[in-house]
């Protein structure tokens, strides 16, 4: 069993090496650690994590709650700073960035999607998207993105008038329309029912394929990993497994 497992790892590593030769490294994470204080307790959310993300990949980071997924995503996205370690984005060390550079990085290069959509309640769907686009250059055509997420008829509705799935699609459209290098999705289906969840995953795949964006999804939902190009498994602040899917399946075929 152990031998088989080692063989598997060797195989996947070879494949990864082969891929990395062909594709550019987008993120390079080196020995990343993060601890923070919760009252009197020190929580070690990340412990010496290292990995790479390649341009155009669909990556799923899989792990139970409290495994450090969200902390990792926040640091990659420039929303939080590590206690130690480095994050290179296109060979630039973003952990060295000052507040202004980090803001610029979030503005130009990152699109966030959150579990609870986090739309601004007093702006309509379209306005929420425009809010993001207004401060960016080289953005996508808003109407095109709205069509892509199939929200043409709901564009002028306020979040409170929309279902969870619709709100998450607005959030995806908001992130995608900025035309960022990477989409970071924190449990995008976590608050949705199965069918709606699947529809959201489809949209994310579509963004990955049609708009050629790198997508990183963090989830605790194991079946979602089946659609990823690559999967990183986390537990207790560490990456415990990393593997590549040779044949990522269509989101429609995922079941949980």
């Amino acid at each position, binding site marked *: 069993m152990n031998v088989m497992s080692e063989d598997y790892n060797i195989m996947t590593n070879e494949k990864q090496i082969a891929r990395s030769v062909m594709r550019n490294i987008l993120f390079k994470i080196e020995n990343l650690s993060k601890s923070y204080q919760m009252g009197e307790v020190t929580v070690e959310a990340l412990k010496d994590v290292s990995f790479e993300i390649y341009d155009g990949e669909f990556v799923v980071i899989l792990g139970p709650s409290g495994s450090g997924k969200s902390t990792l995503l926040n*640091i990659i*996205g420039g*929303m939080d700073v590590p206690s130690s370690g480095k994050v290179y984005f296109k060979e630039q060390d973003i952990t060295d960035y000052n507040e202004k550079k980090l803001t610029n990085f979030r503005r130009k290069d990152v699109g966030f999607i959150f579990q*609870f959509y986090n739309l601004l309640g007093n702006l309509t769907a379209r*306005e929420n998207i425009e809010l993001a686009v207004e401060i960016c250059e080289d953005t996508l055509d808003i109407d095109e993105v709205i069509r892509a997420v199939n929200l043409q008829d709901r564009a002028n509705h306020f979040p409170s008038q929309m279902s969870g799935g619709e709100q998450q699609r607005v959030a995806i459209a908001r992130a995608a329309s900025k035309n960022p290098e990477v989409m970071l999705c924190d449990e995008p289906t976590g608050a949705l029912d199965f069918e709606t969840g699947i529809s959201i995953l489809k949209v994310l795949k579509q963004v990955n394929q049609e708009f050629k964006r790198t997508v990183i999804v963090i989830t605790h939902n194991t079946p979602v990993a089946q659609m990823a190009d690559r999967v990183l498994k986390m537990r207790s602040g560490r990456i415990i497994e990393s593997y590549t899917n040779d044949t990522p399946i269509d989101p429609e075929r995922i079941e949980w």
Partner: protein
Amino acid sequence: MKKLNLRLFRMIKHSKGQNIAILIVVITGLFTYTAMNSAITNLETSLLEFYDLTNFGDVYVQMMHFPEGEVHNLENLDNVKEVDARIVFDAPMITSNRDEKVSVRIVTVDKYENRINKLFLEKGSRAIGDREALIQKQFAEARNIAVGDTITVQINGVRYPLLIKGLVSSPEFTYVMEDEQALMPRPDKFGIIFLEKDFVGLITGMKGIYNDLVLTLEDESKYEETEKLFKNRFDKYGIIRIIEKEDQLSNSVMFEEINGVKQISGFIPIVFLFVAAAILSAMISRNVKNDRLVIGILKALGYSNGQVLWHYIMYAVSIGSVGGVVGIFTGTLMSGVMTRMYLEFFYIPLLKVKIDPMNIISAVVLTTIFCTIAGLYGARRVLKISPAESMRPEVPKEGNRILLEKIPSIWNKVTFTWKIVFRNIFRDKKKFAFISLGAAFTVAMSLMTFWLSDLTGSMFTDHYGSFMKMDYSVKFSQPLSRNALIDLEKIIKPDYIEGKIEMPFEISNGRLTKAVNVIGLQQGSRFFDFKDYQGNTVDLPKTGALLSYNLAKSLEVDVGDAVLIHNYIPGRSDVYVEVKGIIKQILGINVYMDISHMEILTGKGSYNGAYMNTKENIGEDLNSLKSISGVQSIGEMQDAFMEYLDLTILAIVFMVIFSGLLGFVIIYSMTILSINERSMEFSSLRVLGFTKAEIFGIILKENSVMSALGFLYGLPMGKILIDALRTVYVSDLYTFDAPINAKNILYAYIFTTICLTIAQLITYKKIRTLNFIEALKSRTS
């Protein structure tokens, strides 16, 4: 519109109740600032232009007699630029209504044009000759006198019909009062007429002699040296008093009002803008707290700290701008109305109601500064919010025991709701301070208003009625002997009459000098009720003098000190007089002496006036007497005051509204904030079975405890305001010295309670409509 601005717009629209409340405060502040400042700028610039145009005199001298031959010498006195020598005296005007007592001040002028205090011709012609007169416009209008009409004036017992050649205004009489004690103009009862110098000299037998001089100086700063030179040189002609331009009656009243309004217009808007800024800052701070997640999202989307901070500052600036524009616009409109209101009292022919850009600019700058600071202060926490942290639920605020909890004997007896009340009060100390400050503001301002209203209401009734008890005060055209007074009594048949001597003298204590009327009264006079500040009766001393409080204060003398009375009567010397008592006198400043003792100043045995009481209307009898040059009816003075009172009531109504508004807005805004902030807590209480009324009760109790503290320190705050007002309106003409009485305090408390209760009741609607279930869903953005 940028989407963040759109969000801001919707945010403002969403909490419109609170925003309207803040807007009202900003508008009120800016409205007062602009209205008062513009009106006062109009008044001041027009007045100065008028002075410039008419060559307003720098020094006014009242003399016993000044010979024409000395005018040239006076002109050659060092620093004297121009001189106008005149005859000035009061005389009765004969009217068709025989009961009416009207007097005029006759001022002589040159035939064509004066060098100093030139007359501004409003109608008719300036040139006058014998038996022709120019008449002060306000008096003419009040009495319906037109160019071409004839008026009759009695001079030295002879009636002179005078043809009106023109209606004029003089810089010396923009505010026309008979004397310092009249306080208010009575344009229909007292006016100024200008007669040709030679004609008056001829009919009064004063040809070549003047009793009044007006000078202009080369250098106003050298006034004191010139005064000294003048006194040395011309004292022999009997200098009654020398008045510098600043103390000239009309001019000093004008500038007292201008400066008073300037100070108030600086103070009131600051209070209002401060309150608006504090509420805005509290609201923004709450918004930032509630928007923690939104701020995180915006930062995640790539919005910079500056952009997010500006978003919240914009909120304050928007409210400030809208309030500012409305306040400045309505204030500018109101300034026209206010300027016209002033015209009822002051008359400046060149008065221009114009918009002063500087006033508008300063109002805009003032609002911008206040709102930006409020915004920055309220939104400063934006900078600290990290996008990653904002996505996690907020760590509950650390709970601490309050002081009261450490005393179990008390704490254990406190009911559950009162425990919540006390904990909340002491946990949010800023809110505690602000709400109590709101109550204190309202108590303080309403206390000042009720005190002021009490004061103005009683000012005249206290002075004319309680302090001065005569029906009439008459001036004789010549000094009369005791026997002549008895003859006069036989003719008029008053119920009671007392002769008096009232003469202006300069009183000094060291370098401090005041020109005041010294009044000689009979021992046991029935016409004055002298009291000290403690309310004790003070008897007229047989020797020495009583000084009114304001006079004693400005001369810095106390009972037992001596003051020097400078005697201008030729042949009589200056006299030191001991201060035997200091009395309360609301209007004017005076010295009172026993009439026999006053002979040390004036010489033996004569009266120059009398006080009398009578139920009969004796106007006709008095007018027909040659020996009487002027009559003041106390009843008429009170009537004139009632007209003035209308204006005061209007001002007081405004002040009451302002003070109520402050308390209302503070309590309303803070309560709404509190309800919004604590919707989770209230929802939990609802789940526990609390009724809406019980939850409202908790808020009510909290606010009541916090306001109660404000009620306590509102009183000393009110006293500070009242003292400030007393300092602003310090004047020889009147004293704002009424004590704060229990009635004032009671009214202030009742009024504040009403305002705060209304504010509270309105917030009940918020409790009623609050969606408790929705509030329990904590992750809404």
